[in-house]
């Protein structure tokens, strides 16, 4: 127990150091924050532009889709803030920096996300949460305690799911150093995918992303639950509340893939 708290303490200090070095130059940090805040705004404008040509999308109004977007953007921004820099594993593997991580008495994954923590991404999270709050206040939601709780945990469960994709995707770097943007197509692609109702997608695409990778649980199902609507595709109503379970499954799978990757690295050294 004492060891665990000590380790937690260590991660906190690593995080603190990273934040200190990033905020050392205040002006440049402020510019970083402002540009990052802009990113979800641009996405949002693209989304709203769609509704200039059609009043509804798959039977959902702009207000409904805005709830999905708010959930998805918040989940993505949180995941990106916490584990997004795991993408840098490529650089660590290529330059042998992972060895320096392995000789410290701390977990590999936890070290990677703390030593490269990028605070400026918090701006995206703040904007995304603001959009979510505006969306749910403007949408016609029959509020119940269960729905209030869902609004609290849905972005977190979604972030775990996105985080699992980030981690599992970046593990490819252990086998294929030049893995490039493969992981990004699933993470950034997933963010765009989850901003829209899944019934607008083609069947193959929907099966692969919405169900296969569980992206339906990030924006679509929680939004249906909030709005008190059933899935036009016919999924049972209880499924709308299952984001936490889906995120646990995804996180477990990602943990297995990650351990497998680290073991591979340690037997091949590349």
């Amino acid at each position, binding site marked *: 127990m004492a060891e665990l708290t000590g380790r937690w*303490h*260590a991660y906190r200090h690593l995080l603190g150091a990273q934040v200190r070095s990033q905020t050392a130059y205040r002006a440049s940090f402020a510019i970083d924050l402002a540009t990052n805040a802009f990113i979800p705004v641009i996405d949002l404008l693209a989304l709203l532009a769609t509704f200039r040509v059609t009043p509804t999308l798959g039977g959902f109004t702009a207000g409904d889709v805005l709830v999905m977007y708010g959930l998805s953007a918040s989940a993505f921004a949180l995941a990106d803030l916490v584990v997004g820099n795991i993408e840098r594993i490529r650089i660590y593997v290529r330059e042998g920096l992972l060895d320096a991580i392995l000789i410290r*008495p701390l977990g590999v994954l936890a070290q990677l996300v703390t030593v490269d923590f990028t605070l400026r991404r918090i701006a995206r999270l703040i904007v995304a949460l603001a959009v979510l709050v505006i969306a749910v206040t403007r949408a016609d939601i029959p509020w119940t305690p269960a729905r209030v709780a869902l609004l609290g945990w849905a972005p977190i469960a979604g972030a775990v799911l996105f985080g699992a994709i980030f981690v599992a995707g970046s593990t490819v770097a252990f086998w294929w150093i030049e893995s490039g943007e493969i992981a990004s197509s699933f993470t950034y692609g997933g963010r765009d995918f989850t901003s829209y109702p899944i019934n607008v997608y083609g069947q193959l695409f929907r099966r692969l992303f919405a169900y296969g990778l569980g992206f339906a649980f990030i924006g679509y199902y929680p939004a249906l639950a909030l709005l008190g609507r059933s899935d036009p595709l016919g999924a049972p109503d209880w499924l709308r509340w299952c984001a936490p379970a889906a995120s646990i499954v995804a996180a477990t799978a990602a943990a297995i893939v990650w351990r497998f990757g680290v073991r591979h690295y340690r037997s091949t050294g590349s």
Partner: protein
Amino acid sequence: MNDTVIETTGLRKEFTVTRKVGRLRRARHTVAAVDGIDLRVERGELLGYLGPNGAGKSTTLKMLTGVLLPTSGQVHVCGLVPVPARRRLAQRIGVVFGQRSQLWWDLPLRSSFELARHVWQVPAAEHATRLARLRDALELDPFLDTPVRQLSLGQRMRGELTISLLHAPAVLFLDEPTIGLDVVSKQAVRAFLTELRDRGDTTVVLTTHDLADIERLCRRLVVIDHGRVVHDGSLADLHARYGSRRRVLVELDEPLATPLQVPGVELEASTAEGRLLTYSLDGVSATAGELVARLASVAQLRDISVQEPEIEDVIARLYTTVKDTAVSLPSQPDPRGRAPSR
């Protein structure tokens, strides 16, 4: 008490190499980077681990530090099996990989040490004592508040040494600690390692290509080539094995009345009517000091000079000639090693 800090038996690491043979076909074959290394290192030893590039030095170090999993063979460091016990081992060892910094690039050097205290969970008082000693020994004070990225290579290496020792490791692994350093920094690092060695409680394993490092620091040398140990012994053993000898040149007022008999000393040349003598020493049983003392007791000395054997030649010869004949010396060196006499 068991004083063996590192023990390996039949340590082996294979890598799979894929080679292009056709437009699409790839041929795979396995290469043994480390091919059956047996090594015992006792507490307090300073071991020089040498070998040409690609001999398997770094691969061995990675297996000893828990970074790489051996293909076969046994390895124990501080009584632990490195890979499964990685975190616990990390508390007991310090590692300086020349090119892979443990320091925080954008923060003042001082902050890296403070972070290391939390990473290795060192009690504050112990940390302060050790840091004070290391600051003093490695003269860190002038650049303690400088961001690491602004440090010179020599300053950074002194920082790396400090951070690797703040948790009082039982073993320190150094991968080319003096590579690229200027003369002054090299000397500072060497002087520090000499002191560490002489204190005797930290075991040090050092890989280097620097011959001065070897002469100044390493009482025991393990030379590997093609993943096998080709020499394990002191520098003197190495000289003895390859027949390199130190020479003592003396100039006397008068020739010697009777030839001098000292074990391990041979008269190589006698010129200027016996007044200019060249003795060669086998470097193991006789010291230049003994020889000079004996000479001074029977004759009047005018001038003395000592010629060191060329270690460059010895190592170069070792790297080129013993490729296939992996013979280890019959004698296991004692834990304190035998430093070449000076």
